[in-house]
C-alpha cells in the first residue's frame, strides 16, 4: 500500500501485510501445507510451544492415560502392573471408607465454596466504597492468601486447640460452648471449612476488579427510579458479576475437591475418619499401604470424572444464569 494513494477509499480496505510473514492468515483457499508461509508459521509456532508440548504429553496426557490403565490393575510401584479388570471399581462400590471420604469431600466443597463466594463478595462490596484507607484493608485481607497451607494448618492447630487456643478462650464470652474442634468428628470438617475462608481475600480482589468494571451510571439511574440497596444489588450488581462468579465457582470446586493438606497435617484423617477426604484416602492407598496403587488410581479416575462433570455442569448451565453482555 503506497502512501500516495492515501485517500478515503483506501482507509476502508484492510491494508495488505507489507511482508508476507508470520501475519499472513488463511484467507486464501487450500490447506495450510500448500502455502510456504503457512508451513513456515506452523513450524515456528510448534517450535515455540515445544516445551509445553513435551510437558503436556509427558506430564499430563501420559499420566492421565496411565491413571486409567493402572485403575484396572493391581500395582505396587515396583513390579509390573497386573491386569485385574473392573475389580478395583467393584471394590470401590463396596468400600464404606471410600464413600465416607467421598461424602466428606462433597461436604467440604459444597460448604466451603458457596460460603467463600459470599464472604468474598461481602468483602469486595465493602472495599468498593471510597474509603481512604482501602489499600490497608486490601493488604491485610489478602495477606492470609499467601501463607503456605502447611503453615496455616500449623497455626490453626494451636489457634483452635481446646487448651491453649485463642478461639476457644473467646467463645464462652459470646455465649457459645467451645468445641474440641479437631478432636470431635462433628466439628473437624467445619473447622477446615472455616480455615478455608481465610483465603477469601484473594477472590475478594477478583470480585472487586469486577465491581469496579460496572458502569456507575446504572446505579445512578436505578437510584433515581427509587431502587433500594438490595434491589440494586440483586438487579444490577449480581447479574453483571455472574461471569466472575462462574470463574470463582469452577476454580473453587476444582480446588475444593482436592482438599488434602489440612487433614494430612492436622487430623491425619480423623477423628473417626471425619476428615478422611478423597485425596487423603487416595494418598494413603498409594503411599502408605502396599500394592494399592491400582486402587488409588481408581479413586483418581473417580476424582477426575467428578471434576470434569461438575466443571461441565457449572459451565453448561452457565448460559442460564451468566450474563455475557
Amino acid at each position, binding site marked *: 500500500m503506497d502512501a500516495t494513494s492515501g485517500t478515503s477509499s483506501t482507509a476502508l480496505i484492510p491494508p495488505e501485510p*507489507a511482508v508476507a510473514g508470520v501475519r499472513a492468515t488463511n484467507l486464501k483457499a487450500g490447506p495450510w501445507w500448500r502455502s510456504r508461509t503457512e508451513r513456515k508459521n506452523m513450524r515456528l509456532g510448534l517450535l515455540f510451544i515445544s516445551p509445553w508440548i513435551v510437558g503436556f504429553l509427558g506430564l499430563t496426557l501420559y499420566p492421565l492415560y496411565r491413571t486409567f490403565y493402572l485403575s484396572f490393575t493391581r500395582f505396587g510401584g515396583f513390579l509390573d502392573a497386573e491386569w485385574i479388570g473392573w475389580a478395583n471399581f467393584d471394590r470401590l462400590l463396596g468400600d464404606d471408607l471410600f464413600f465416607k471420604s467421598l461424602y466428606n469431600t462433597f461436604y467440604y466443597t459444597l460448604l466451603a465454596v458457596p460460603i467463600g463466594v459470599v464472604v468474598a463478595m461481602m468483602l469486595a462490596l465493602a472495599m468498593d466504597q471510597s474509603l481512604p484507607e482501602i489499600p490497608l484493608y486490601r493488604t491485610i485481607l489478602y495477606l492470609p492468601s499467601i501463607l503456605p497451607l502447611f503453615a496455616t494448618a500449623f497455626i490453626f492447630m494451636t489457634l483452635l486447640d481446646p487448651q*491453649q487456643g485463642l478461639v476457644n478462650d473467646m467463645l464462652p464470652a459470646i455465649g457459645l460452648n467451645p468445641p474440641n474442634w479437631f478432636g470431635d468428628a462433628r466439628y473437624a470438617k467445619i473447622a477446615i471449612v472455616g480455615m478455608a475462608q481465610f483465603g477469601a481475600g484473594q477472590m475478594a480482589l477478583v470480585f472487586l476488579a469486577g465491581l469496579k468494571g460496572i458502569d456507575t451510571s446504572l446505579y445512578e439511574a436505578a437510584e433515581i427510579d427509587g431502587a433500594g440497596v438490595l434491589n440494586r444489588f440483586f438487579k444490577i450488581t449480581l447479574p453483571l458479576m455472574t461471569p466472575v462468579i462462574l470463574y470463582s465457582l469452577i476454580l473453587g470446586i476444582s480446588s475444593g475437591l482436592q482438599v488434602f493438606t489440612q487433614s494430612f497435617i492436622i487430623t491425619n484423617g480423623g477423628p473417626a475418619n471425619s476428615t478422611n477426604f478423597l485425596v487423603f484416602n487416595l494418598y494413603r492407598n498409594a503411599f502408605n499401604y502396599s500394592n494399592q496403587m491400582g486402587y488409588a488410581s481408581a479413586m483418581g479416575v473417580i476424582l477426575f470424572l467428578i471434576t470434569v462433570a461438575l466443571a461441565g455442569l457449572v459451565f453448561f448451565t452457565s448460559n442460564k444464569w451468566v450474563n455475557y453482555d
Partner: protein
Amino acid sequence: MATITAAQQQEIALRQGDAGRARRDRRVRFVRQQVVPRIFLIIMCLIFVMPFYWMVTQALKSNEELVRYPPTWFVHDPQWGNFQEATEKIPFWKFARNTITVTAAVVIGSLISNPIIAYGFSRVNWPGRDKVFMVVLATVFMPFPAILVAYVDTWKRISDVSRKDLGINLFGLSIPLPDLPNVGIGTFGPLVIPAFLGSAFFIFLLRQFMMQIPLDLSDAARMDGANEWQIFSGIVMPLTKPALGVIAILSGLAAWNDFLGPLIFLLKESLYTLAIGLTFFQSQADRDIKFNLMMAASVLVVLPVVAIFLFFQRYFISGMTVGSIKG
C-alpha cells in the same frame, strides 16, 4: 464517585424543596457508605490478622506459658531464644537452602519457558493455534491429585532410565555411554523440570499480555531482516516485563509454599524443603508438640513471603485478578 452520586441525589432533593429529607438522606448515605463498610472491614481485618498474631505470640511463649490455662493473649516473658532453638531442633538452614534452591530454579524455569510458549500462542499465526490453546486452558482445571500415582510412576521411570547401564554393543565390543544424571524421583527434578515446560496459567497470562503488543512492531522488525527469535528476545520480551514480574512472584510463591510435591518426591532428609521439615516438630516421639518452636519456625518460613508481598504487592494482585478477564 460514590460521593458525587450522593451530592447529586442531595441536589435533587433540595430542588424538590425538601431540605429535611435531604439531610436525612445524607445521614443514611453516610452510614451506608462510610460507617457500615468500615466497621465490617475492620472486624474482618482483625479476624484475618488473628492467625498471624497468634503465630507470633505462640512463637515467643515459654514452655510454661504455652500450657497455661486459660491461654495468655499477650506474652508475659518473650522468649526470643525460641527462634534459635527452633533452627537447631531440626536442620532448619539445610532445609532452607533446599527450599531456596528449588524456588530459584522454578522461578528461572518459569521465566524462560512461559514467554517462549506464550509467544508461540500469540505472535505466530499457525493453523490450529487457538484450538490447541483451548487445551492449554483446560489443563488449568486438571486435578493433579487424580493422576498422582501415575505421575509419581512417570518420574520413577525417568529415574530408572538414568540407572540403566546405557551402552552400545558393537560386535561384542561394548562401548559404555556416560551415566545420565538422575533427575527423577528422589531429586529436585520433579519439582523443578515442570517449570521449564511451562504452566497453563502463566501461558494464559502472558498470552493476554503479548496480544496487546501491536503486531506492526514485529512486522517492522521482520522487514529489517530480524528472525523470529530476534523479534521475541529483542522486542516482545522487553515489553512483557511487568507480566514477567507477576510470573516470577507467583511461581516463586507456589514453589516456596508447595507441600504435596516435596512430600512425594524428596525421599531423603538431605533434600527436604522447609514444608516437610516443619512437620518434624509434629513427629516427635512423645506426641507432645512443642508449639512454640513450631510457630517460631513457621514465622521464619513465612517472614520472607510476607516481606516480598509487602514490597511487590501490586504484582501479586494484578496476577490474581487477571484470571477474571477470562470470565
